[in-house]
């Protein structure tokens, strides 16, 4: 039994005006949609709802989200995945693939010509001004086409289906195409919701494509099996999630410009184990930002000298610097002659009709037909993601005036306003037809170009949206290419027969180590402040009138930025919570999503308390501490205990040691006030242990012994120093038997001091000295392993006169 005829009739009635992917003009379900609709038809509303929830659950657990920009604030939003998938007819897909591969070959040939002999300009097939004035034509890379590495290896093509039923090219993405990782996540999530359906339809898998891509990257690296990196603009980029996800999925190092350094002609990664060579980067950073020395000098996220390394041939980028020139909308106006010259073929995929206004005759045509055309910039600079119009024009730029002269027209194109096909998506009122665009992905290896069997489809949030944009509330759906044979599972694991050998992870980039170190510190700092605040609040609620002890606690809290007196201590906690969560989000690829979410939850918890003017500090702080111990547990139980984990442990132990020293010092200083010893025990969470080990009467000596010197108490100062010494000894570059460097010597000395001290000597001076030693050890550790200060530009403030 198929889907209920009434529902189909209702859907067909709305879909009538445009071409629909599912319904033919005669109202019948197209054959390639029939199996899907038959299965959906059998599902009750309740069942559908449950299936959608399981997809959403997967996405939220995996931490898939996207950034939305507005009024200067970045916000993470739930990933808007719709259902069902866009289903493509197998025969039609094969034809589309052939067209896409041909297009990729065309783009490759065009790029090689523009960064090579420029025959198309010399032969007047392309106006030279489209290169001369093109901001994406990168001068330092002119002539690069002669090298051995291919200039293009991974591209995307945006497609829309016209009323004639053909797929039309809306634009090319060659600079740093995004969306492949999201396509993969959409696939996983959709398969969670409809595992039976996708199996029954034999939907083609995506993993094979990624496996080929990965093999290609490693092949580019040559026989030495060097590391491969994914170069990202960093956590503030809107597609950073995808970068982290793909790096993890493909086993690449996630690198920012600051992680790289160029020595001679070679690019190297700054790691905690010194500089390590790297020869291939999958570039997700726009070219102009890659090298402040030879490209945009204002870039703070690039690597000085990167262009040198590329020019020398020692570093291959996927795609080449400068490949963004292929995204120039004006090039779409010259497709035919360019393809004829470069391929000797006619392109089988049509391109959206485009007119370049730099020629007077054409400018006049555009002026006369302005009402049915859309005007937009002729040169590239299209946002990489996720704004994708049905034409290359950017929203906000479409009501541009028709240029008065051809000279003004050089920067402007007119494009046909494409009518998109619609595809069924479950909305509030059941299945609704929504305009859809398809982003197809291609990769190239020695055998040529391969198309990802699927893609990233975007749907508008309403029927007649002209611009499909996730920033504006649109969504995305999976893309299914059913096959006639059962899909064979493919994974990224090596072929059968590969000998398994367990290998340790490669050297840790210094920036990642730095973030892990600080994550350890910040989480612990948050905990220390929370404990102090809870102590203070508990005494308050127990009816103690504020006295000397409260005053001392308030001073300690102020050190952490938590103000008691203004009545808003939560704000200080919020800052500390945010610090931890932000640091964790910067290294998400090295973390379990659960651990990261725990920290986000703390922020949410405090925000909620502030919003609701919750005054019960004890309750809030207790809840935070529960989350923090959850985080610590996850980090301890689930993280791979190698170099990265060690840096986090170092940060944690250092911070905890310093906090314990500072708190103990403040509490035992001259004439400890009433309750100070209990407070110290509570702060170090050692009350229970104390009661079991010592008599009920508190003495300063025994409390100090337990909280400062006892090496078996995991909260004692001595325990932190021991941990630090053990973990540091396992860090790279530490070889037993060699003369220890300053860092190790300092640590060893501190360790001995705590081992040999008597509880009687532990006074404020002793504790302050330990705190100072720990600060110095932190500096030494940073200097040795983590140092990566911000870069400054050499200023020529003299200026010419």
């Amino acid at each position, binding site marked *: 039994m198929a889907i209920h005829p009434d529902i189909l009739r209702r859907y067909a009635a709305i879909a009538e005006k445009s071409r629909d992917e599912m319904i033919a003009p005669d109202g019948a379900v197209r054959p390639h949609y029939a199996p899907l609709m038959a299965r959906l038809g059998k599902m009750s509303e309740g069942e559908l709802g449950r299936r959608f929830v399981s997809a959403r659950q997967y996405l939220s657990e995996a931490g898939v989200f996207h950034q939305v920009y507005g009024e200067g604030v970045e916000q993470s939003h739930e990933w808007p995945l719709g259902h069902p998938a866009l289903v493509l007819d197998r025969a039609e897909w094969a034809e589309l693939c052939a067209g896409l591969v041909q297009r990729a070959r065309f783009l490759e040939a065009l790029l090689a010509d523009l960064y090579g002999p*420029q025959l198309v*300009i*010399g*032969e*007047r097939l392309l*106006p*030279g*001004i489209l*290169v*001369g*004035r093109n901001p994406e*034509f990168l*001068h*330092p890379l*002119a002539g690069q086409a002669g090298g051995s590495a291919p200039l293009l290896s991974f591209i995307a093509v945006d497609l829309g289906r016209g009323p004639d039923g053909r797929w039309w090219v809306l634009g090319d993405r060659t600079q740093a195409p995004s969306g492949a990782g999201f396509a993969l996540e959409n696939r996983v999530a959709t398969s969670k919701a409809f595992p039976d359906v996708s199996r029954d339809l034999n939907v083609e898998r995506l993993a094979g494509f990624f496996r080929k891509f990965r093999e290609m990257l490693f092949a580019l690296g040559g026989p030495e099996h060097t590391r491969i990196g994914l170069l990202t603009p960093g956590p503030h980029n809107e597609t950073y999630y995808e970068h982290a996800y793909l790096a993890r999925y493909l086993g690449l190092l996630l690198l920012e410009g600051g992680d790289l*350094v*160029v*020595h*001679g002609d070679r690019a190297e990664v700054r790691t905690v184990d010194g500089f390590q060579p790297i020869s291939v980067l999958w570039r997700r950073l726009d070219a102009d930002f890659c090298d*402040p*020395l*030879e490209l*945009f*000098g204002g870039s703070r996220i690039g690597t*000085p*000298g990167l262009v*040198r390394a590329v020019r020398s041939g020692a570093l291959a980028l996927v795609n080449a610097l400068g490949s963004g020139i292929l995204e120039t909308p004006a090039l779409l106006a010259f497709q035919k002659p360019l393809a004829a010259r470069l391929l000797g073929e006619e392109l089988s995929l049509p391109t959206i009709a485009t007119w370049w206004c*730099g020629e007077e005759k054409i400018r006049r045509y555009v002026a006369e037909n302005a009402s049915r055309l859309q005007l937009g910039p002729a040169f590239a600079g299209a946002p990489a993601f996720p704004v994708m119009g049905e034409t290359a024009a950017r929203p906000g730029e479409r009501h541009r005036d028709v240029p008065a002269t051809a*000279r003004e027209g*050089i*920067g402007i194109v007119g494009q046909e306003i494409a009518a998109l096909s619609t595809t069924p998506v479950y909305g509030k009122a059941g299945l609704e037809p929504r305009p859809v665009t398809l982003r197809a992905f291609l990769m190239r290896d020695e055998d040529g170009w391969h198309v990802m069997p699927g893609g990233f489809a975007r749907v508008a949030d309403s029927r007649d949206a002209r611009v499909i944009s996730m920033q504006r509330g649109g969504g995305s759906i999976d893309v299914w290419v059913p096959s006639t044979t059962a899909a064979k599972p493919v994974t990224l694991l090596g072929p059968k027969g590969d000998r398994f050998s367990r290998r340790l992870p490669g050297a840790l980039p210094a920036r990642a180590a730095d973030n892990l170190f600080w994550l350890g510190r910040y989480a612990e700092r948050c905990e220390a402040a929370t404990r102090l605040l809870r102590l203070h609040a508990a005494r308050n609620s127990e009816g103690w009138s504020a006295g000397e002890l409260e005053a001392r606690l308030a001073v300690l809290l102020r050190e952490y930025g938590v103000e008691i007196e203004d009545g808003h201590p939560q704000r200080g906690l919020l800052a500390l919570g945010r610090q931890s969560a932000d640091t964790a989000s910067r290294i998400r690829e090295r973390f379990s999503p659960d651990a990261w979410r725990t920290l986000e939850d703390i922020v949410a918890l405090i925000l909620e308390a502030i919003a609701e003017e919750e005054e019960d500090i004890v309750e809030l702080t207790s809840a935070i501490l529960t989350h923090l111990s959850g985080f610590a547990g996850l980090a301890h139980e689930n993280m791979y205990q190698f170099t990265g984990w060690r840096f986090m442990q170092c940060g944690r132990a250092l911070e905890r040691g310093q906090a314990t020293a500072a708190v103990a010092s403040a509490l035992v200083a001259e004439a400890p006030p009433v309750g100070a010893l209990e407070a110290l025990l509570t702060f170090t969470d050692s009350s229970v242990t104390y009661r079991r080990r010592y008599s009920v009467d508190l003495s300063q000596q025994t409390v100090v012994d337990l909280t400062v010197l006892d090496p078996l108490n995991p909260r004692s100062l001595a325990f932190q120093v021991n941990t630090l010494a053990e973990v540091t000894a396992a860090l790279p570059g530490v070889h037993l038997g060699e003369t220890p460097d300053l860092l190790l010597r300092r640590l060893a000395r501190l360790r001995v001091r705590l081992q040999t001290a008597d509880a009687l000597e532990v006074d404020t001076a002793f504790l302050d000295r330990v705190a100072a030693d720990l600060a110095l050890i932190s500096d030494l550790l940073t200097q040795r392993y983590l140092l990566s*200060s*911000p*870069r*400054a*530009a*050499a*200023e*020529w*403030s*003299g*200026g*010419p*006169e």
Partner: protein
Amino acid sequence: MRYAIRLKITYDYPAAVTDARHLLRVRPHADAGQAPRNVRLAITPRPDEHARERDFFGNDVDAIAFFAPHTELAVLMEAEVAVERPVPALELSPSAPSLAEEALAVATADGTSPLNHLGASRLIAPVAPLTAYVAETLGDGLAGEAVMALTRRIRDDFAYVPGATSVGTSVAEAFAARRGVCQDFSHVMIAGLRANGIPARYVSGFLRTEPPKGQPRLEGADAMHAWVDVWLGGELGWVGFDPTNGILAGDDHIVVAVGRDYSDALPIGGTFVTAGPQETDHFVDVIPIG
């Protein structure tokens, strides 16, 4: 005319810097109008890396790098240059409108092509009132003579005020204030010409320090100077105009580098890592030696 040229650039970094990379464009250019010889470049401290290169526009580039901490950088360039530039036959240039058409018909986009110098660049964007200012000066007459008139008009209308602007001053600001130094005048002129379809590029170089007897001292002679190359058609090619002094760039001008704007031709650029401030100074001597 022959000159002995000395250029000294110094940087002071009180807090020390590491991982420094610089590109220097300080060597006099060799072309039909000028022949450098005995060019010496001394750099202290000694760079860890030093490579000589040629950039897209044909400029001589010294790429240097220092990895160890250092607290100062000194670049000393000394050269002798013989300059003999023919006076361009401005009367042979086409009219401004046909020059604009001729430029667009050029079918090369290499480093010498006028097509690289028609649009906006990093530091130059069109400014509507400036476009009109240049358009009224250009008129429909011969482009060469019109550009000369524009060169003089800028010198007359603008005040030469060292320190009034900085490297970051935009074309719009400099035009509105009608004052600045050679770099501002050059950027203003380039922006106005390009917006009128005439290819124009930025030139960085030296100016004779002491004038011949009886002539006034030229502005901008104590530091690196900047002026404008204008493309006057296939016949005349690139011709230099100095809007700071209202003259053609002649035998008193020694070309070092050209580009779309200052950022392509700057004498020293680069990045380094430091926690502290930096101070920089430079001086230039251009002495006739017969």
